[in-house]
């Protein structure tokens, strides 16, 4: 496009002629405007502002003029060079900005490609569920207690008011350590942890017991020989079933959402008297959908058992039932997970298939 001015003829034209200076300036400005990139602009700069450019030559000729003409010619040429210099600067900035922008465009990538050099692992959803429950209990001022899975029969049964003939003690229900007369079982519930806590710490006591328990059930979609329970035990002066209900309601709403409450129905358990079954307000339909699958249209979901701690349990654990009352409740962690996530087959929870864990995040 542009380049050194080839029409220039120093013989025919005076370099200091005003018209000629203007023409040179105009030629320079045209070339600058036409420069399409920084390289071209560099050539334009050499041709129109370099040492050998017409304006530079004109400048050099000023010295040969008579003194009277010097000032005027100097001013003319100076202004001309200034205009060209300014135009170069502006065009330079313009082209640099264009270049920077183009680089960013050229560097664009496909951000939708999925990275995965080392995907995040997971804590098991059952553990997350247990942790959530534990955190709610801790938030209410409770503590979390644990105990052994191979447990003494006394802690598992007698201390909890299951007498020697109670059906749960049969080998058809509970795993015994061989030989059975040595008094060791795989704990069938987390309640022995309650007994241990009462014996170790005494009253007042507010503990949640979390852990794995065992029953002689073959593995199928809704049964596992090893599953997870959480139980709560509070022993203090003046505790009533109202406090039990309040604790359950709080736990229910924290776990399943605002407004999810519990309902107590009379029942029977050896370690509590009075005893109750607790139901959870259906968190899917909230009792408004007769065709709801979560609650079979009843509006309530069975959640676990609870009651006021039987005096025989308090006595066995060296707590004075005349002074203290207590309440206790228990529920399945795995079941709670099923409610929350819609998981329908318990086997998937324990087979260790990472695809099960991967469905969830790190907080259930």
């Amino acid at each position: 496009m542009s380049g050194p001015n080839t029409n220039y003829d120093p013989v025919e034209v005076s370099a200091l002629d005003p018209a000629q200076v203007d023409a040179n300036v105009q030629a320079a400005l045209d070339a600058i405007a036409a420069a399409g990139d920084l390289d071209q602009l560099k050539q334009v700069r050499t041709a129109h502002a370099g040492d050998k450019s017409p304006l530079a030559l004109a400048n050099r000729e000023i010295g040969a003029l008579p003194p009277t003409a010097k000032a005027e010619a100097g001013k003319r040429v100076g202004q001309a060079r200034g205009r060209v210099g300014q135009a170069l600067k502006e065009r330079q900035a313009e082209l640099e900005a264009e270049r920077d922008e183009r680089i960013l465009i050229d560097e664009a990538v496909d951000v939708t490609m999925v990275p995965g050099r080392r995907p995040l692992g997971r804590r098991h959803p059952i553990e997350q569920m247990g942790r959530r429950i534990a955190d709610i209990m801790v938030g209410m001022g409770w503590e979390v207690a644990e105990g052994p899975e191979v447990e003494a029969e006394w802690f598992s049964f007698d201390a909890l008011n299951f007498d020697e003939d109670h059906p749960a003690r049969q080998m058809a229900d509970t795993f015994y350590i061989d030989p059975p007369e040595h008094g060791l079982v795989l704990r069938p519930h987390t309640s022995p942890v309650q007994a241990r806590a009462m014996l170790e710490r005494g009253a007042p006591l507010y503990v949640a017991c979390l852990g794995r328990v065992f029953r002689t059930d073959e593995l199928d979609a809704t049964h596992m020989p090893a599953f997870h329970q959480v139980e709560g035990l509070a022993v203090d002066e003046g505790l009533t079933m109202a406090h039990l209900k309040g604790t359950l309601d709080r736990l229910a709403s924290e776990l399943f959402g605002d407004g999810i409450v519990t309902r107590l129905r009379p029942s029977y358990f050896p370690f509590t008297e009075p005893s109750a079954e607790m139901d959870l307000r259906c968190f899917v339909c909230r009792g408004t959908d007769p065709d709801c699958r979560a609650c079979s249209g009843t509006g309530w979901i069975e959640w676990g058992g609870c009651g006021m701690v039987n005096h025989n349990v308090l006595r066995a654990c060296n707590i004075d039932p005349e002074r203290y009352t207590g309440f206790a409740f228990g529920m399945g962690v795995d079941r709670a997970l099923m409610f929350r996530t819609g998981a329908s087959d318990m086997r998937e929870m324990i087979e260790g298939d990472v695809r099960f864990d991967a469905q969830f995040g790190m907080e259930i």
Partner: protein
Amino acid sequence: MRVPVDWLREYVEVPTDARGADIAESLVRVGLEEEGLHGGDVTGPLVVGKVLTMEPEQQKNGKTINWCTVDVGDANGTGEPQGIVCGAHNFAPGDLVVVVLPGGVLPGGFEISARKTYGHVSAGMICAADELGFPDDGSGGIIRLAERLGRDDLTPGEDAIPLLGLDRETVEINVTPDRGYCFSIRGVAREYSASTGATFTDPAIALGDKAPRANDAGFEVRIEDAAPLRGQVGCSRYVARIVRGIDPTAPTPAWLAVRLTEAGMRSISLPVDVTNYVMLALGQPLHAFDLATLDGPIVVRRATEGEKLTTLDDVERTLFAEDLLITDQQRILAIAGVMGGENSEVSDATRDVLIESAHFDPVSVARTARRHKLPSEASRRFERGVDPLLAPAAAQLAVDLLVEYGGGTVDEGVTDVGTAYEPVSIALNPKDIGRIVGVEYADDRVREILTQIGCEVSPEFTVTPPSWRPDLTTWPDLAEEVARIDGYDKIPSIVPTPPGGRGLTTSQAARRLVGESLAAQGLFETWADPFIGDDAFEALGFASDDPRRQTVRIANPLSDEKPWFRTTVLPGLLEALRRNVARGSKDVAIFEQGLVVGGPAGTAKTYPVGTYPGPEAVAAIEQAVPAQPRMLGWALTGHADRAGWWGGGRAADWSDAIAVARAAAEALAVELVVTAGDRAPFHPGRCAQLALPDGTVIGHAGELHPKVIGRLGLPARTVAGELDLDALIAAAGSPQARILSNFPVVQSDIALIVPSQTPSADVERVLRSAAGDNLEAIQLFDVYDGDQVGEGRKSLAYRMTFRADRTLKTEEVNGFRDAAVAAAEQEFGATLRA
């Protein structure tokens, strides 16, 4: 327990418009959980129809259907014959059938509408037995009413629902073990009354009044229990009545048979049906003996070990010394309260019947039923406690029914032997009830409720529970009665305010941290059950004296192949790994935190319920429980760093297994000392021993032994590790903060040639210690064992980073470096690589 609604209505005034669901709801309120509703789910129009025409039509699919017109009277609103397509063939024009018209609903919520089929509009359906919820009667499907009901006076269009008893409802409830009396219509009626206030009439009262007193003419019965269990005589009462001259062919009346069926029992013969009916009605199990087979007085005694009896279910049973028996002078007649023997069974030839109405000890019956794996309707009731005053009334009802329907005559002789029932009484402070329930009950309200459930309440609140409530022995038992009858829904909801806890324990918090750190490293947590077999020990290559073979055995394992409680979490983890791979996952990294048995088990005594055995006894029990440390295990296969569009992946190797251990330790600020190890199930040359700074070995990690990989069917080069998480947590440090220097670092690289077997960790330790305090970091950045370093040698390249609280001079740093190299020369014969 199945409760036919019309039977319930006989004892309690259920409102006429109350449906099964309403009754169930009332029972749920007082603690009888609903198990199901049966019947009553058919809604009309379901009418009698008379088949007018029936044209078989061959279909393209080879089937023949019948295009019928059926007279349904005015039930269809027009009086015109109804056109219906029917696929069954066991009927003919002129037959009376059951027709469900459009709008009717069959069991299972199956709604009928007119629909186009086989080229006709079929406006309803001719019903087969199974479509109405009846068992197929073998006739081939369609119910023919005249035959089924034995009636020919039916009119087309007549409502068929009551004709077939489809309006009858049965409520099925679950009875908790403390409420044995609810295994009877009488007991459930009482609960319904308590729940709703409906008037209840105890059928046992009139029967008891009617029953004659015992006399000398009764059949002789002796109770000779030489070995009572837990201080309770096995039979506290034995009432016997005799009915003679029964017609052995007399049928059971239809109403009684229907009730039995609805309650879930089969109709067998009049005498048997009568005993079952009385049991269901009142809760008293009875037994009927063929009087002709009895020889002399009945003796109730314990068995002699090894005695034999063939029970009614045709099984010869060897008896245990604790079993309580009904015997005569020759033979054993029955296992008391559990099941009768074949030899005294009533049969088609029986004319004289002896009715046994007895009270057997719950513990004795329960143990016997369990020992013989013989739960029966009778044992189920005796185990939970039968009303000890009920026996004469129950026997009376049986006698009345046998006389009325069997044509027999009752003997004057009445037997009633045993010990008198002594009621317990409970001193109640009525205020205590409110104190435990959280609802304030007026004294009068407490009295009202307790009286309603059958208690006698003295003016001073001495409460005597009724004979059918052996479960009421303490005042909290009475509190439950008051609370449940008044309604659990009246209990307010109050969040208690504990004194404030300490939060999670250090160990609990540390375990979370370790788990989350591993998850962040890409590992997935799994659970495995703790049961393992000898094959697991073999597969892992445990030596015969490996301490991890020392554990407890489950006496009643689900699988005889897996009787042991695990001592390591690896078998479950590796099984899960294998399963993931088998299901198509190639890159798998998993971990588990779980308890294992880590010490010997002792003998733990038991003590009676309700007693504190004392601190020494409790300590001894705790001592007997084997130690159960919590292990952290992990296993990886496939790529540790995945392949993808970014480039190739990196296979998980032994170092990744060790990195997991390091991550766990770092999360807890524990310095993990890693040295070469050799332990099953690891590759002997690629096994790291993991120790605490004090030298305690807490685990191992590395590549699995190729033979283990082969035996378990795992992918080649699978890596794993396991450590004692409790021990790691116990060593968790509390590092002290240092002042961080901001002066420049000076780096110095060295390459040392050492014998191949020299562990780099040892070299690093020597370098670190000789380089002095200004060594800020040291990192092994290259390992080379090619030709240039010579056979049996390797080159280890370290970058040493120095920093001090001033600017270090080059000469100084060179001095530190030279000292480190000199120490390595001294210790390992190391030479500086040129």
